[in-house]
Structure formats: C-alpha cells, structure tokens
C-alpha cells in the first residue's frame, strides 16, 4: 500500500572514494510509525541519515518523501517540506537563551526573516508558544538561561522542543540518547513517545532497550546494507544480526 509510506529510499548508495559506506539501501517508513535504525559501529547509519537529510549527496539511488522525489533537494528545503532532523551532538544555539532557541524555529512560520530594519518586538507574538513548548519538555525553570549553560540531557530536551516548534510531519532523530544518564534516558524516551502522536519518527539509536520499547519497526544495517528488518522480537532473534553485533565487538553493551 504505497499511500501508507511517508519516506522511502531505493538503492541508496554513498561512495567515499572507493569505500562504500551505504550500499543499495531500500527502506520504507510507514506513516505514523516509530522506525528505528540500528547496527554496529561503522554500519553506515549516520551516513544514511545524512543522505536522508541532504547533508550528504547520494552517489546513486533515490529518496521519495510524501510522493515527491527529494534526492536532489537542499537541506533547508526538505526542512520546509516537514522533514526535520536532530543531530548526534546536541544541536542548540549555545549563546541564545532557551526561549530564543525555540523562537528561532517558530520564526520560520513568518517566512524568511530578512527584516533587519524591524525591532525584536516583532517576535513578541511568538513568545507565548515558545514558552508552551519549553514547558512541554520540562525546561520552564531555564527560559532565560543561555543554552550553553544547560546540562547535556536538558540540551537534548531543548533540541526536541526546537524541532517540535516547526511542527514537523516527520522527525529524524540521530542517536537521541547518546551520552545520556539513566534519568535523562527515561525523560527523553517519554518525550519521544509523547511527540510521536500524529507524527512519523525515524531514529538511529544504540540503546537497545529504548529501541525495544519505542519502535514499531526496526531495520538493522551492517556494512552499509540492510541485514534484517522487522519488529524487535523477530530482529533480536535473527542469527545474522546477533553475529553482526558480536562480530563487531558489540555496541549493544550500552
């Protein structure tokens, strides 16, 4: 049923001067699902992610989002189509306050902000919604704080609030739990579950317990290729998956 698929890739390939990081990946992400992409280190997850978000140009293959070929689009353009990514390292605007971080995303609704002659007061109407989003991720106490002073976990929360401000149809999360303490993992996990309502989420994640509890469908990558796909129960029993993880030294220790 093609109408159920929000994002699909066909034969997506990326060569880095002889080394094929991603090799002919066909992936279909169902609308409204939480889809996880896992695999041992060096499997090509991050490269694949960067291809989807146009931060890298594919060598071969196509990417179709909402029935539209986005293979040659620029990164800023796909964000405008409702496909918004997060980053492995926490991506905030460090010197701007928590509120301004979120407001920067809300500003997008004004269209392009080239109005350098206008006062900051023009952005006041956005403050209320920005505060609501900051509250939704539990950062109300830090509204005026520069983002650089937030703890790691809170930066991730701020990043999610900023992404949500765009009200994206689909979110791509690049290792949302990377480098997080247990408490933060639980908080962000609950947050992802909350924001996944009426949205599609594709995430790369190492923390398998998070993957198990959150995702509807899992694709396992190894050496740039799809090794297995299915729900957690079937994928975790797959002999090739187990071998790929143990053979590589195993990230699953997280």
């Amino acid at each position, binding site marked *: 049923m093609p109408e159920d698929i929000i994002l699909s890739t066909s034969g997506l390939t990326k060569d880095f001067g002889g080394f094929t990081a991603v090799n002919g990946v066909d992936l279909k992400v169902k609308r409204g699902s939480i889809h996880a992409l896992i695999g041992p280190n060096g499997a090509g997850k991050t490269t694949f992610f960067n291809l989807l*978000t146009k*931060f890298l140009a594919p060598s071969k293959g196509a990417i179709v989002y909402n029935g539209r070929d986005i293979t040659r689009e*620029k*990164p*800023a*353009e796909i*964000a*405008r189509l409702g496909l*918004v*990514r*997060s*980053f492995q390292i*926490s*991506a*905030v*605007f*460090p*010197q*701007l*306050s928590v509120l*301004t971080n979120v*407001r*920067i*995303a809300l*500003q*997008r609704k*004004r269209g*392009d*902000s*080239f*109005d*350098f*002659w*206008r*006062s*900051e007061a*023009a*952005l006041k109407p956005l403050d209320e919604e920005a505060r609501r989003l900051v509250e939704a991720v539990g950062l109300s106490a830090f509204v*005026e704080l*520069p983002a*650089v*002073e*937030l*703890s*790691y*976990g809170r*930066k991730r929360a701020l990043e999610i609030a*900023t992404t949500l401000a*765009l009200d994206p149809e689909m979110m791509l999360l690049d290792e949302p739990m990377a*480098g*997080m*303490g*247990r*408490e*933060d993992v639980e908080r962000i996990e609950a947050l992802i579950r909350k924001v996944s309502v009426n949205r599609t989420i594709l995430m790369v994640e190492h923390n398998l317990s998070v993957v198990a509890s959150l995702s509807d469908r899992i694709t396992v990558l190894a050496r740039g290729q799809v090794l297995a796909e299915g729900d957690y129960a079937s994928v975790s029993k797959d002999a090739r998956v187990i071998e790929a993880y143990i053979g590589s030294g195993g990230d699953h220790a*997280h």
Partner: protein
Amino acid sequence: MANVASTDAPAAGLAVIEIDHGTARLHRMIFIGIAIALAVAPFIAYPVFVMKVLCFALFALAFNLLLGYGGLLSFGHAAYFGMASYVSAYTAKNWGLTPELAILLGTCVAALLGALFGALAIRRQGIYFAMITLALAQMVFFFSLQTPRFTGGEDGIQAVPRGKLFGLINLADDRTLYWVVAIIFMAGLLAIYRIIHSPFGQVCKAIRDNEPRAISLGYRANQYKLTVFVLSATLAGLAGATKAIVFQLASLTDVYWSMSGEVVLMTLVGGLGTVFGPIVGALVIVSMQNYLASLGAWVTVVQGVIFVICVLLFREGIVGVIAKWIKKPL
C-alpha cells in the same frame, strides 16, 4: 556514560548573552552617554582627531556586525572601506558632487562590491572564507595601484573639497563638519544596533552559533550570510566615504591589507560580539597611533604587543570583560 552535568565549554572569544529588559535600559543609558560624549568631545579634544576615531569606530562596528554576529571572519574589509573612500573623493573632487552625495555614492559602490565579493566568498567556510576575502581585497588594491587616472596611484586623491552640505552648509570648518560626522556615526551605530536585535539578527546569531542546525530548521543560511555581508560592507563603505571627506584624502593605505588587519585588531581589543566594544577598540588604537606617532615604526610593535596581551589575558576584549563583570551583554 556521561553524567548530566554540562561538559560543553562556552564558545571562545564571544561574550554575548541574551538581552532582557534591564539590559535594554542599560543600553539606552549607554546610547545617551555616547550622545553626550559626542556633544562635548569637539570642545575638549581636537575635532579632526575625534572624527578620525568616529570613522574608524564605524568601520569596526561594521566589521563586528559580520564577525561578532554573523560569525564570518573577513580579512578584506579594507576593500569596501577603501573603494568607498576613492569613489567619494573622486566624485567630490572631479564631478563636484556635494559631500552627502559623494558619501552616498561611495557607500553604494561598497554595497555592490560587498554583494559581488560576498556571493563568491560565502561559498566557502572558516579560514577559506577569510582567505577568499583577503584575495579579493588584494585584487582591489592592485586595481587601485594600476589605475592612477582614477585613484591617483601612489599619491592618492588629494585636496578633496569638503564642499557644502546639501549645497548650503559650508563644511570647511572642522566644527561644522564634526556635527555631520557625529550624526553619520550615531545613525550607523543605531542601524547596527537595530540589525543585531531584529528578527533577521536573531537568525544570523543562530547561524553563527550552529549553522547545520539553522539549516535543518529550514533557514537558507547562505542567503542570510550574504545579506549580513552586504550590510557590513555597506556600513564599512559609509565609514570610508566619510573618512575621505574628513581628511580630504583617499589613498592606497585605505585599501591595503594592513587596514583590514587594523579593523580586526580594533574589534578584538574592544570586544568581539559586543555592541559597543568596537568603539572602544577604535578609540584605543587610533589614540595610540596619534599619540605614539613620534615612535615611528615602533607603533606597529606596540600594537602587536597590545594585541598579544589582549589575546592572552582577556580574549573577550575590554568591553567583553566589563560585560562579564557586570553580567550583562554590552
């Protein structure tokens, strides 16, 4: 696994935080303070010296708009300053334009040059961006050197008439000219302040802080970078064009790479990414050049030492340190 505590170091060299109501009031007080200082300055100091400080302060403010708020390091800002200076001097002298028209024309040429060079330079990032701006500025220098019919070559354009403002007010008197320069400076400062705090300025700061993230939010970063580049080049041109009228001279010094270096120095000494830092930086550097002029070539050495001290001891610059001290952005 990393703990919850923040491990990120603040971005080096920038002392910018966010603006709140108390800060807005403080800034208004500073603006009033600057206005008062401008009003009394010609009575306690030599007006031509103050005008020199104001022209370079405006130049540094324009440069800081690009580096401190756009995150773009240009090593070729002398091109816009110097070319505007030539155009303003040439048109005032040879076409007999009134000073305001000569300055306007010089500024417009700087804007066009900024659009052209900016469009080429923003295709690369970091040090490559800086090198392209330097290379393009050197082309402007050699163009100036090779076209003596326009620039006067090694002699420059001398004895530029100050003319009559709007064809009415004779600017030959230093005091009269001073008020015009003070108004131009204040207008430039207010324009930059507005740009920094505008919706556009917010996006620029976001791009400066984290360009990939800004792009992933749907901002076409290059268009913002080009816009801020053109704005900066335009204001640098305004400073250069005004300078030509004040000193009645446009010369190769204005387009030479050391002029690009000087504006970097002023900005860093005053405080990169602070609104008012470049003014203090320009005051310090121009004062040094004037009062240490008897040292001859040693001025450069003294400048170098000050620069090293600045980088080693207070990277945020004079105003940046004060801002940190009072915990308010300046």
